[in-house]
């Protein structure tokens, strides 16, 4: 009850910081907000050029390779960017936290929400891709009513990012090394998540395939692709696994953050 009241009081701060992060992200750049679209568009083109020949040839696996790639990359990019920004948020707000009382979870949370808003805007690129490939090429994505289920994997992704973001932001206060370690981990995650390849396509040993599928981002991207690319119902196992994983992470995140937040000020 006390926490809800406190949150209610500081909801303006959450709003202001989200607003600030979005406004400042593209300030002083010539193309401004268009980078939200251009960046995923251009990186996808690069990846299609690099991997298209190897992984994109067999349509049985990927249906429409550019959309397959873009959808995976959007999920991955949101997850890593938002968790990275959450991780650094406490340190970057040190000057405020040291001087004024504010609920500290506002900082990681607002960074993730700001990233989430730009992520949702960048989904327009995906819509553009789907329309283009549906009407102008013969590698058509399947459009069906299951597209209305798209918010489900997206919301699970948001929960997961908040959970991981809270854990990382707590750790980063005490151990700066986490920032560098996480860079390496993000790179590993890029290859471990089926972004530019399909797991079944690789003909990996069963044990390795199984390990890749333990990655919650795998379940989330698969569900996401079922809605926007394959046009079919996603598997309930993916839903249960990714939702369960995200909720547990979220609980751990809030617990760790709550336990340690009073010590932040002594370390930043």
């Amino acid at each position, binding site marked *: 009850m006390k926490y809800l009241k406190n949150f209610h009081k500081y909801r303006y701060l959450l709003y202001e910081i989200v607003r600030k992060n979005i406004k400042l992200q593209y300030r002083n750049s010539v193309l401004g907000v268009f980078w939200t679209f251009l960046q995923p568009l251009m990186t996808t083109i690069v990846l299609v050029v690099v991997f298209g020949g190897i992984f994109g040839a067999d349509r049985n696996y990927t249906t429409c390779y550019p959309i397959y790639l873009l959808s995976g990359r959007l999920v991955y990019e949101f997850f890593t960017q938002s968790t990275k920004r959450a991780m650094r948020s406490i340190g970057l707000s040190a000057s405020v936290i040291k001087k*004024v009382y504010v609920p500290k979870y506002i900082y990681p949370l607002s960074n993730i929400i700001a990233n989430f808003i730009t992520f949702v805007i960048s989904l327009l690129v995906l819509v553009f891709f789907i329309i283009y490939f549906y009407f102008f090429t013969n590698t058509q994505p399947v459009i069906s009513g299951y597209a209305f289920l798209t918010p489900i994997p997206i919301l699970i992704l948001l929960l997961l990012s908040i959970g991981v973001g809270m854990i990382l932001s707590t750790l980063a206060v*005490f151990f700066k090394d986490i920032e560098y370690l996480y860079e390496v981990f993000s790179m590993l995650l890029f290859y471990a998540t089926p972004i530019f390849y399909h797991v079944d396509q690789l003909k990996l040993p069963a044990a390795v395939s199984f390990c890749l599928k333990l990655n919650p981002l795998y379940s989330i991207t698969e569900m996401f692709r079922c809605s926007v690319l394959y046009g079919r119902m996603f598997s309930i196992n993916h839903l249960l696994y990714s939702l369960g994983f995200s909720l547990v992470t979220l609980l751990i995140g809030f617990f760790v953050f709550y336990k340690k937040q009073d010590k932040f000020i002594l370390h930043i």
Partner: protein
Amino acid sequence: MGKPAIIVDNVSILFNMNKEKVDNLKEYFIKLVTRKLHYNEFWALKDVSFTVEKGERVGVLGFNGAGKSTLLKTIAGVLKPTKGSVTSYGVIAPMLELGAGFDMNYSGRENIFLYGATMGYSRKFIQSKYDEIVEFAELGEFIDSPVKNYSSGMRARLGFAIATAVEPEILILDEVLSVGDAKFRMKSEAKIRSMFDKGITVLFVSHNTNQVLNICNKAIILDRGRIIAQGDAAEVCKKYNEMINSKK
């Protein structure tokens, strides 16, 4: 007896001072395994108790390192006491360092709303105070430039203008009146004095007994984390001056 505004009850604060700063995993594990994680215990505040009544203006005097800022940070809620408790009634506007909540890339106008939100005020409420803030801060056309281009005096003026415009019930001032030029100092002192009539409670940290006498009606002296004197501002200031002279 008036209503209490701040009750500081037996507050002690312990800092673990690492002999060396351990901030990476490798060092931490090496030291943990070899049992070399030594801490120097340091009580920044020890059994500090006092009550500030509503409408009182309390000056906090003390030498460097006496625990003044630690005490104010505890009251502001930034630090949690190791022992004891702090209870406060009413909205606190901490002015521990003017402009601490500013974002350097943000313009003055945008920072007004951000700073207001940091203190828990809505955009609408700040909007209603907006003209007053800009006028008091004397920023004029610079209000739309990024704060990173402001001089320190301009930043301080803006911070002060926001913190006082929201009409807080408790104002915490940590040597903020020593920034800015003489003209602004007089203006801000006048502003604070005008708030006395509305029954604002003030906690004021300073080294300058004249300023304390000017603003406060009560005062306390902190020395190495303990209160060694409290009471009427004039008496306590006299005692503080004696302390300074005896140290010389």
